[in-house]
């Protein structure tokens, strides 16, 4: 069990058998009274959030979490199929993956987090490289640094890129944010 003094942003806890992550945390103490810990917590699977209040005497369940290294195999309709080291299959849905599905490539090594044998999170390599397959030519002479334009990368995902990038350039995308990170090479 966790004690309330263990609470901090990012801590993963369990409530009624469900896994949650602490997203905000505040310590309050009324006058001569006991400490009250107010947390905003997020359900690790469905993403719903709520506010939970703890007193100093409360104890909090520790979720049984385990990480497994898997390799991406193939897509089957709405399902994305991964294999662990024993060739045990793990199926994740399109909704579960969200935008991250666009960054998968065959044999990519990923970490899948399980709570009681149910997948609750996936971590991809931080950066992936993709080729720009379509973008409008940038307007010449526009050197403002913050100006971006939409670009479609291989697989169909759209990101905002700086104006100087062109079709055929390879870009680096941060899989945590889904955003353009850097230019890798010029066509």
């Amino acid at each position, binding site marked *: 069990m966790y004690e309330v003094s263990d609470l901090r942003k990012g801590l993963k806890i369990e409530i009624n058998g469900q896994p949650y992550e602490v997203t905000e945390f505040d310590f309050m*103490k009324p006058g001569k009274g006991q400490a009250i810990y107010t947390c905003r917590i997020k359900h690790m699977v469905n993403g719903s959030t709520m506010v939970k209040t703890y007193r100093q005497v409360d104890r909090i369940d520790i979720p049984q979490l385990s990480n497994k290294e898997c390799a991406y195999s193939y897509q089957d309709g709405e399902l994305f199929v991964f294999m662990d080291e024993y060739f045990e299959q793990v199926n994740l849905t399109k909704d579960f993956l969200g935008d991250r599905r666009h960054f998968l490539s065959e044999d990519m090594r990923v970490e899948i987090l399980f709570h009681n044998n149910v997948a609750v999170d996936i971590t991809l390599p931080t950066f992936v490289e993709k080729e720009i397959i379509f973008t409008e030519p940038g307007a010449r002479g526009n050197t403002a640094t913050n100006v971006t334009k939409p670009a479609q990368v291989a697989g169909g995902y759209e990101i905002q890129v700086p104006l100087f990038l062109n079709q055929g350039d390879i870009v680096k995308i941060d899989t945590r944010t889904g955003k353009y990170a850097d230019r890798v090479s010029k066509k």
Partner: protein
Amino acid sequence: MSSHLERLKLRTVVLDGIRAFFSGRGYLAVETPLRIPAPALELHIDAPPSGSAYLRTSPELYLKRLLGMGAAKVFELGPCFRAGERGARHLPEFTMLEWYCVQAGYRDLMIETEELLAALWALAGNCAAFRPAVIAPTPPWPRWTVRETFLRLAGWDPVAQYDADRFDLDLVQKVEPQLPRDRPIILMDYPVEAAALARCRPGPPAVAERWELYMGGLELANAYGELTDAAEQRQRFETCARARAALGKAVYPLDEAFLAALTTGLPPCAGIAMGVDRLLMLLTGVERIDDVRAFVP
């Protein structure tokens, strides 16, 4: 937002202003020990151990002993410590202002506090970092009893039937968020079970002569008509020692020198403790207590 150095300049002006205010009113400025053998026993206030002693959580017991020695008015401005308290408005080491006055009641302290803050607001008004979070502390401040406030904002009367868990939780979740933010509020007459070191008034309803000052959503000060009865004080300390032991918390020795001073006789008096860093948060409009101190380790 103002710069860190601008806020430290305002801090200097306010600390100087506090000392000038109390010196001008005939208060004795004292420095009592920081490292002490017997911190006041309170259920939810923990003193950090320091070798075989503790760091003080408040100068209260020493300041009252000075009243027993014949001082009529005393004040102290300095560091206090609380183990395990850390948040946007809590630091394990913070600056406390406490002052005590004989032959004064807890209502007299309300007026003196109004005058102190009006003076400090005027001084701070000349500083670049002045961004007051409340409009102005123009007196008189509304005085709300705990009973009527809880009945209105939390739907029950803790003075009639006290429930410690519910009281603490509702205070944080229901009462404090609904207090007006644009002016100071005095919350007064606490349940006798939440008296701490305040004396109780028979009633009906029986209440503790204690008040707290709220400003801009912050709990800023806590005041008592002081308990001066040695036997009752000893009994409260002993009850608290048992409750701390039951929770597995450290039980500090009783401060026998303080209890002896009460036995010899302490004149009727009132006292108040104010969190100076929080006052500076209000004057500079910052959300984090760290932003009004030079360093937070």
